[in-house]
């Protein structure tokens, strides 16, 4: 377990940059990751893995795509056709003309983005406190943060509903953002704590000697150094808000509804399910995030690299 590794006094692998630190990029590290040359055996094994595990990952995605291109009256044809006989973009066209979906989309974007930002901020403070200070109960609290995920959500939901109701927060973005942020804390806090562990104490101390306030140190030295970690944590938090169904459904009310409940509401009716449209919509909402991931990959990987991973 990472527990003790995380507590170990970090070995500075980066020489402290001269201060004041401008919105810093970490100094070049040792080369890590893939080997320059690989044995043929390794390549074969790698390809075999990609084919088997990748097939498992991508075949259902293909099925999602194939279904979204199938006309409604052929969706249930048996045996199923691996390649739609008469592919159509009807389902996608239907999405574009459904204004309500854009409302759901906007709600989802707002909730997920705010969740990501808030989660990163709160976790950064918490992670920094866990990383750079020593006090009684610190370890217990760290585990308590993890333990907060252990409770059955159905029960949590019922009481959470009355809590938000009592404070007039039902049917608001706030209720969703607060809940999702809380649910992302365990991973984000632990991840960022690990990241801060790798920032040398000397760096912080030097800034203090210079008279920088502690909050300023966090904001203008530590956070910029940890930028990749923040992005990684933020992406995770974004996806948590993006994917949630039951809390969004219950806390958001009809007008603030996000995409997952919105999609169900729109395409899964009392009598039938609009499979092609549902699948088309799922693809449309997951692709932009996948592309963003590919674009942000180097930050993401960099962030995780120095973060929880390393300890």
């Amino acid at each position, binding site marked *: *377990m990472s527990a003790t590794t995380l507590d170990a006094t970090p070995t500075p692998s980066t020489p402290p940059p001269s201060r004041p630190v401008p919105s810093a990029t970490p100094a070049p590290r040792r080369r890590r990751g893939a080997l*320059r040359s690989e044995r043929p055996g390794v390549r074969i094994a790698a390809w075999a893995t*990609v084919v088997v595990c990748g097939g498992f990952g991508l075949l259902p995605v293909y099925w999602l795509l194939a279904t979204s291109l199938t006309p409604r009256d052929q969706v249930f044809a048996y045996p199923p056709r691996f390649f739609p006989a008469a592919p159509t973009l009807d389902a996608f066209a239907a999405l574009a003309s459904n204004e309500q979906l854009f409302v759901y989309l906007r709600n989802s974007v707002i909730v997920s983005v705010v969740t990501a930002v808030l989660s990163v901020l709160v976790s950064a403070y918490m992670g920094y*406190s866990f990383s750079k*200070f020593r006090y009684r109960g610190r370890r217990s609290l760290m585990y308590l943060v*993890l333990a907060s995920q252990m409770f059955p959500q159905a*029960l949590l939901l019922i009481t959470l509903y009355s809590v938000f109701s009592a404070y007039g927060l039902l049917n608001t973005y706030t209720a969703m953002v607060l809940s999702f942020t809380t649910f992302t804390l365990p991973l984000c806090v632990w991840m960022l704590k690990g990241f801060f562990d790798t920032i040398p104490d000397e760096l912080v101390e030097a800034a203090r000697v210079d008279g920088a306030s502690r909050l300023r140190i966090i904001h203008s030295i530590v956070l910029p150094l940890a930028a990749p970690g923040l992005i*990684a944590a933020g992406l995770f938090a974004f996806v948590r808000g993006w994917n949630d169904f039951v809390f969004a459904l219950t806390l958001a009310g009809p007008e603030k509804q996000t995409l997952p409940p919105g999609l169900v509401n729109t395409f899964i009716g009392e009598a039938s399910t609009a499979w092609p449209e549902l699948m088309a919509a799922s693809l449309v909402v997951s692709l932009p995030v996948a592309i963003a991931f590919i674009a942000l990959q180097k930050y993401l990987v960099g962030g995780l690299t120095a973060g*929880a*991973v390393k300890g």
Partner: protein
Amino acid sequence: MTSSQTHTLEHKRSQEAARRLSDGQFAVLLLLPGVALLAGVVLYPLVAALVTAFFEQSLVLPGRTFVGLQNVVDVLQGDFLRLLGQTMVFTVGTTVLPFVIGFALALALNTRIRGAKVLRGLMLIPWLVPGVVVSFLWMWIFNANYGVMNALLQSIGLIDEPQAWLAQPGTAMGAVVLAKTWQSFPWMMVMLLAGLQTVPVELHEAAEMDGAGTVRRFFAITMPHLKGIVGLVVLLEFIWNFQHFDIIYVLTGGGPAGATQTFATAVYETAFHGFDLGKAGALGLLWMVLLMALVVVYVRFSEKGEKR
């Protein structure tokens, strides 16, 4: 944790005196937003829900009566052990399988094979498809009468007759675990891939020159570097899966004949269909105790391992 202790940065107290807050107070201040969120969104509702374990209370009827440990006793006398067993099968399965697949893919995509970058992105899609759609997609794939799984396996000759994957006690749990695995392996892959990036290449190169094979280097160099991240993702995944609900619920509704019922579906069933908040709370209470115990054991165990 309120009292301040020592600071890792041992330095002049004179500088400190000028500041309004001690380090300890500052450290606590930093914790406040997170602690407040946890208290408001998890702790308070949690205690409120646990308290119902001691009452006879309905979701729809007003009022409640104190019944002591009656609910807990009822739950323990019911099929608690079977639930526990099935929950463990599901949780362990959905933790180990995504880990194995995610790790294998991470290792494969950490090599320089062509297209690794794009594949890393594509592999994320299962994680990004809205969870509720994942359930419906797999329900559809596994369906006995028109599912593509049967068609695929029949066309390659693995089965002769269409199988009711979700309706046979022998296959239902496996099917549910597979669907959940599909949803969570990308997350595992991303985290482990990132972990692999921290392994210094020089170490591998040096070892290679000393004649160490791929497998040996994997255990001697790669694994030790990954210990931290592996511990974290496995623990989190375990906790999340323990309370995972929607895929099971949509795919099998806990069936056939209760073969895929877990604590999470049982709690939902009891609270929302039986409206019995007391019994649902009792289930939650037992669950909490169990999981806490498991985590404590896990932490103790892994810390011992570290100290040696």
